[in-house]
């Protein structure tokens, strides 16, 4: 009987100690788990922050690119408007090219009406270009006389020994460069004049067909 009591006491003691140590261990385990969880959460938060920062950076980059694109487009549009003058007519022209609808309404005009309106506009443009070209020719003429004057001046200066040979050659080079440029411009002006002539002929033909 005594031995049974001893055995029960020992078992109870072991059970008590075991439970205590188990609880302690489980507490320790729980603490560790908690720490790991906290660390995981911290890492998660850091990742989230990094992701957000990346997102922000991407958005900023996108905005900057869009702004740049807008500025470039605006600049191009301004140039286009300045140079071509009639953007609307061009848009209408593009529309026609797309539609290819012979005889149907185009921007409230029939194909025929639109064609004649565009021809009229081209006629005005041609006149403007002719004016511009004659101004260019005047500039070229002035340039030629300046070149002549400069050449005479340096020759005289060389004869009177006001300038050295090296100086003379340098100035002559400058004059030649200007002369070459003038030649190029003159050539282009002539070519453009030919194009204008061709354009005028085409417009006259349209005018005749209209009558």
């Amino acid at each position, binding site marked *: 009987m005594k031995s049974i009591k001893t055995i029960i006491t020992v078992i109870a003691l072991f059970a008590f100690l075991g439970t205590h140590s188990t609880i302690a261990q489980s507490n320790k385990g729980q603490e560790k788990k908690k720490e790991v969880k906290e660390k995981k959460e911290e890492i998660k938060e850091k990742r989230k922050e990094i992701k957000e920062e990346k997102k922000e950076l991407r958005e900023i980059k996108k905005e900057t690119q869009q702004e740049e694109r807008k500025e470039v487009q605006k600049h191009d549009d301004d140039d286009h408007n300045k140079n071509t003058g009639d953007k609307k007519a061009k848009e209408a022209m593009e529309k026609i090219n797309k539609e290819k609808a012979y005889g149907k309404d185009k921007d409230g005009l029939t194909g025929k009406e639109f064609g004649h309106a565009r021809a009229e506009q081209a006629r005005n443009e041609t006149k403007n*270009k002719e004016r*511009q070209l004659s101004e260019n020719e005047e500039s070229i003429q*002035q340039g030629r006389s*300046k070149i002549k004057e400069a050449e005479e001046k340096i020759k005289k200066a060389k004869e009177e020994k006001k300038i050295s040979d090296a100086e003379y050659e340098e100035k002559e080079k400058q004059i030649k460069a200007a002369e070459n440029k003038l030649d190029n*411009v003159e050539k282009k002006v002539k070519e453009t004049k030919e*194009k204008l002539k061709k*354009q005028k002929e085409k417009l006259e033909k349209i005018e005749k067909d209209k009558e």
Partner: protein
Amino acid sequence: MKLLKLLVVAIVFTATSCVDKKAQEEDAKLEEAVQEIEKIAQDIESSSKEISEEIKDVEADLQQLDSIIKN
């Protein structure tokens, strides 16, 4: 009588379609011509742009010549 009516309708129909076809052909011709003038206009535009840029360049050179003339 019926045959005559049919004949008249056929003639009117043929005449209308002929007129339509002609109008369409004229429109097509005009459009082609407009496209050509459009192309030339663009060409002229780009040439005159080039010319005005070159004129600016030449003007800068001429200013140098001015200084040569003055000195």
